[in-house]
């Protein structure tokens, strides 16, 4: 454009803008703010309602059938890692990743000594899984029937956002499958073949892991979680993921 033509153009300042246009811009701004605020209020209130009484789902309110969950009796774990070995063998887990692992913690006790606490960790099959929320290709979802968070390896593009989103570091990228892999409660290898328990549960010699259907009052998981005077906790409840793997000291 030539300078002369430029000089003739009107300045794009608020003084030259007609009020109708100004109004429509403000309306757009208000609409965006309103949507944002509404979403914030919605997410805050919904978090408050869930798990007000404790981490164990209220009796009778089980969204899945069977409602598969695992109870980990943490004080008995001795890090023999037979569960890890069984998982690796059953599910072909490569050495650079894990479907379940054992974490270690030190705690001061009387006498100036320290005790070691071992904590098995695996995919918690959350009721509000952050990994499912972030997956761009719906390669992972929570199965409606069993509640297991499953993978469709064909749809996984390896973006690893789910690995970052998981509060429990339960996912790893499997090079051979070219997809993210994680614990699936041995669904394809054991449960669908009629086995009752997962590989890790069978392998544990110290009876640390207990697996079963939480909606069945006769199951051991139900008994453990609803035993009187028992403390039950979950890992990282503040993440809001509502996990289905519980830890107890009884």
């Amino acid at each position, binding site marked *: 454009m030539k300078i002369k033509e430029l000089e003739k153009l009107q300045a794009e300042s608020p003084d030259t803008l007609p009020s109708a246009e100004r109004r429509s811009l403000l309306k757009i701004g208000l609409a965006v703010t309103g949507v944002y605020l509404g979403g914030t209020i919605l997410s805050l209130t919904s978090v408050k309602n869930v798990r007000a009484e404790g981490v164990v789902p209220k009796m009778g309110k089980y969204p899945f059938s069977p409602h598969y969950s695992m109870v980990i009796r943490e004080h008995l774990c*001795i*890090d*023999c890692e037979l569960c890890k070995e069984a998982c690796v063998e059953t599910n072909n887990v490569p050495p650079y990743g894990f479907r379940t692992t054992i974490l270690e913690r030190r705690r001061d006790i009387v006498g100036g000594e320290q005790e070691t606490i071992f904590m098995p960790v695996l995919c918690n099959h959350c009721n509000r899984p952050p990994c499912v929320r972030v997956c761009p290709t719906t390669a992972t979802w929570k199965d409606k029937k069993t509640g297991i968070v499953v993978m469709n390896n064909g749809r996984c593009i390896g973006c690893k956002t789910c690995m970052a989103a998981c509060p429990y570091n339960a996912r790893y990228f499997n090079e051979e499958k070219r997809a993210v892999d994680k614990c699936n409660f041995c669904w394809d290898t054991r449960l669908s073949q009629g086995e009752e328990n997962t590989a890790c549960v069978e392998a544990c010699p110290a009876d640390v892991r207990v697996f079963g259907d939480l909606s069945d009052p006769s199951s051991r998981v139900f008994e453990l979680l609803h035993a009187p005077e028992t403390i039950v906790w979950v890992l990282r409840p503040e993440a809001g993921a509502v996990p289905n793997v519980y830890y107890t000291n009884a």
Partner: protein
Amino acid sequence: MKKILTIISSLLVLVSYVVIAASNQPAADQEPYDEDTYGPEARIIWNKPVKGAFFDHKTHTMDMELDCESCHDELFEMETGAAEAYDDFNMAAMADGLYCGACHDGSSAFSSDTQCASCHLVPEGPIVWTKPVKGVIFEHETHTEEMGLDCESCHSDLFLMQAGAAQENDDFNMESLYEGNYCGACHDGSTAFASNTRCTSCHIGVRGVARLMGEKAETSHGSGH
């Protein structure tokens, strides 16, 4: 004058050399070891029924001045390692007066159920068990030095005096301990903490053992840096 001085000083040097050389002669017991008189110089090591039990001829023949007939051929054949082939070559037999027990009965020499470390190697580091589960340790120092227990407290009624032998037994598990076998003989809640409490005192886990082995490699062999 100079000539005489030279002769005298060189004579002195010669004499002093001879004297010093003579005084530096090896003492009588540092002469070349005569195996025909004193028996094999090297320690005899037995590996059955337990590994790492040894016998030193020198201590008996040279220091104690025993002659060959004291043991050969009634107590022991004159052949290195022959004794371990016999089924009755064990501590019970020695208590009965067989083998070493013929003299090591408390009167001729220290009793065979005392001073175990004279013949048996005491493990320095922790013993690591891997069966039936991995990651279990036992430390002698905690029991012998800190608690002041003697060898007989566990050997050989509860445990063979051999590192790693216990895990070969099928009944080496927690139920056995609760019934009072193995560690459970003392770890019952009264003598020492009950074996169904404080699990991680001994069950340090696969991670714990890996750390221990890593530390040991650093202190004993150097980390190679």
